[in-house]
């Protein structure tokens, strides 16, 4: 092909300005106007939502507290060889003394203590006791005085931890979040009995998959009915599907507690019907079964609605055509109807899976210890243990997992195949 544009004269508007520039200016003005229309909401979202999330995520690697509280010590420790097995020399102890004097004055040393305590227990009390003694120390031979104040200062391990966590950014939270730790020999897994998070992640994934699948299993026929019943009945059914949305989540979850417990309605009914003997009633709550049952119910509408909106658009003539071509009811469904609902299944499954992977209240209430999710652990670190760095790291991993799943889904199904209506 020949390049026509090269020879084409530059088009201008009537005042002689190049057409392209004029067009760009006109479009820019329009864009600016629409931007101004959305500006209030944009600012609101950035200030109250995006910024806090970014800040929270940043906490997962933020370790500036060590260098800020003990600036001189951090510098002095840089010279020390932590693999030598010897304590650092007197200059380091002197720097620590200087730093701690200021820290005690500003009362920041206890915060540093709790921060380092996440990495090795005993650090918190070490800084508290030392903080009480540091003002009374005399000049000279600081090493001796520190070790007198707390014998942990005489332990190489204490100094190794201090040095390892002196950089402003750390992978420590992330390692913790995947049950790993840094030792002088490098990164290794924590002892078997201290591992927790990998199991929780795996369980969250597993249960979310099961919940998604059971939502699909129960939701598909309902959505089909919704899409095919005459309007009179389908409206009624739609109200029943939407009813849970109008009831508080807590109320629904508590209702499941009433239904599922060992002296609850379901067990009573089963015993009465003679299906279960009174002595071994089913354990349906405070375990994974409870979480699965309650979450399936609560997330069901998120599966039904996308499915319904897709099924609604499938003309009944496709199935008729299939049957007229010789397909049995099952073949017509499986080869002709079902493939056309896949975009709805995709949308519903993504929605339910992502909602359930971050669900918190329901597992907390009906999951017991067996059925809790990673999000419950995150909540614990945010509100009880106050280890926000670890909570942030867990959150980042969860987010990354969801994004990864999105990506995999996109590769397999194609994200533009997802239809919500």
């Amino acid at each position, binding site marked *: 092909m020949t390049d026509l544009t090269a020879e084409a004269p530059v088009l201008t508007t009537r005042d002689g300005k190049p057409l392209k520039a004029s067009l760009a200016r006109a479009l820019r003005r329009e864009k600016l106007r629409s931007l101004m229309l959305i500006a209030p909401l944009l600012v609101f979202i950035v200030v109250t939502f995006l910024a806090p999330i970014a800040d929270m995520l940043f906490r997962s690697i933020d370790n500036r507290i060590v260098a800020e509280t003990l600036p001189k010590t951090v510098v002095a420790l840089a010279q020390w060889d932590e693999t030598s097995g010897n304590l650092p020399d007197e200059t380091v102890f002197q720097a620590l003394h200087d730093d701690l004097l200021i820290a005690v004055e500003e009362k920041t040393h206890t915060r540093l203590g709790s921060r380092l305590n996440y990495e090795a227990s005993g650090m918190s009390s070490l800084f508290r006791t030392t903080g009480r003694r540091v003002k009374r120390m005399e000049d000279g031979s600081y090493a001796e005085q520190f070790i007198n104040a707390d014998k942990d200062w005489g332990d190489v391990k204490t100094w190794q931890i201090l040095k390892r966590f002196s950089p402003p950014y750390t992978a420590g939270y992330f390692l913790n979040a995947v049950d790993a730790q840094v030792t002088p020999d490098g990164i290794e897994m924590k002892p078997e009995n201290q591992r927790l998070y990998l199991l929780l992640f795996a369980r969250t994934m597993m249960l979310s998959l099961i919940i998604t699948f059971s939502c699909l299993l129960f939701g598909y026929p309902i959505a089909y009915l919704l899409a095919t019943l005459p309007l009179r009945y389908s409206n009624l059914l739609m109200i029943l599907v939407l009813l849970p949305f109008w009831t508080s989540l807590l109320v629904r979850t508590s209702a499941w507690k009433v239904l599922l417990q060992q002296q609850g309605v379901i067990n009573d009914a089963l015993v009465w019907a003679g299906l279960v003997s009174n002595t071994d009633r089913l354990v349906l709550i405070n375990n994974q079964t409870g979480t699965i049952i309650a979450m399936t119910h609560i997330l069901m509408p998120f599966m039904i609605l996308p499915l319904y909106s897709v099924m609604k658009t499938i*003309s009944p*003539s*496709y199935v*008729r*055509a*299939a*049957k*007229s*071509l*010789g*397909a*049995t*009811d099952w*073949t*017509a469904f499986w*080869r*002709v109807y079902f*493939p*056309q609902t896949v975009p709805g299944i995709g949308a519903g499954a993504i929605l339910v899976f992502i909602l359930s992977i971050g669900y918190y209240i329901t597992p907390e209430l009906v999951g017991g210890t067996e059925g809790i999710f990673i999000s419950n652990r995150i909540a614990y670190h945010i509100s009880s243990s106050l280890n926000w760095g670890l909570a942030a790291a867990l959150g980042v991993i969860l987010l990354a997992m969801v994004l990864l799943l999105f990506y995999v889904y996109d590769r397999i199904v194609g994200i533009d195949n997802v239809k919500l209506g």
Partner: protein
Amino acid sequence: MDDQDSIVSFREVQKSYDGVSLVVKNLNLDIKRGEFLTMLGPSGSGKTTCLMMLAGFEAATHGEIFLNGKPINNVPPHKRGIGMVFQNYALFPHMTVAENLAFPLQVRKIGRAEQEAKVKRALEMVELAGFGARRPAQLSGGQQQRVAVARALVFEPDLVLMDEPLGALDKQLREQMQYEIKHIHESLGVSVVYVTHDQSEALTMSDRIAVFNDGVIQQLSGPDDLYENPQNSFVAQFIGENNKLTGTVKELNGATCQVALADGTELRAEKVNVDGVGKGTTLSLRPERVELEPNGGMDNKVTGRIEELIYLGDHIRIRMSVAGNNDFIVKVRNRGERRRLAEGQDIEIGWAAADCKALDLVQ
């Protein structure tokens, strides 16, 4: 009752959806093997309903349907072996054209090699060889339509149903497809039941036409008969253009009758569907059978006034006031008379009694 050359027989079939009104009233119809039969009728007259009963998607409320002499009321659709082309084509959007065509072969467990050969032949038949790998959405309306026809024929049924298959196409394409479908019908020898509400489509394609109205077959005959010899006013009105004159039967004499119009004009007409002397009747007369200034022994002669002249090139339409009817249309071939004709002019017109049918009275 089930005679050997009919592939389909409807026997006293009735259908009601709501239990209150009948959509199909007492349908008796025999479709001959190899025939192209068209169901023609206005919207809501029950054509699709008949087709759906035949295909097995609707159950007859009463009566029996026979396919190849066997009652099929209790045979599910997929066992009837009837090909069907839907109005919106119903091509499976998630399959390619070739997969669509292979579908009926796959469900019949036909070997892969034979499948491929048949699909290829079917695509060639509708002149779409090379389009096998496309999705239906990547085809034009006419191409989709052809795929739908090919899919309904690929498993070699002896009967194919088509429900307004050309409804979505523009006029030119529709005419081309009419020809192609007719051609396929002739070369394969399948029986076709075709539904349309386009009368010219029905006239050009069909061996026989069943004109439906209000759940009843008004007339079942070949295209020419339908036009030349309508059996009642509805058919006369529905097929082609038609002038309507209302009057009372004065006397009957053999094949003709004498009819007096409201203004006293007396006309002679062929007696087709009249109840007897003194009863009302509607006369039906085709516009092209009227002659201007007839010479000699014409059966009927009246004077009318020209209200409007419409020049259409090869012919001229004249709207006239005749015997109190000011919507009387006359079509004359363009032989240069237009120079002599002027609006407001009175002129004598005439027609033969055989061209004027006395039918049942409609208001």
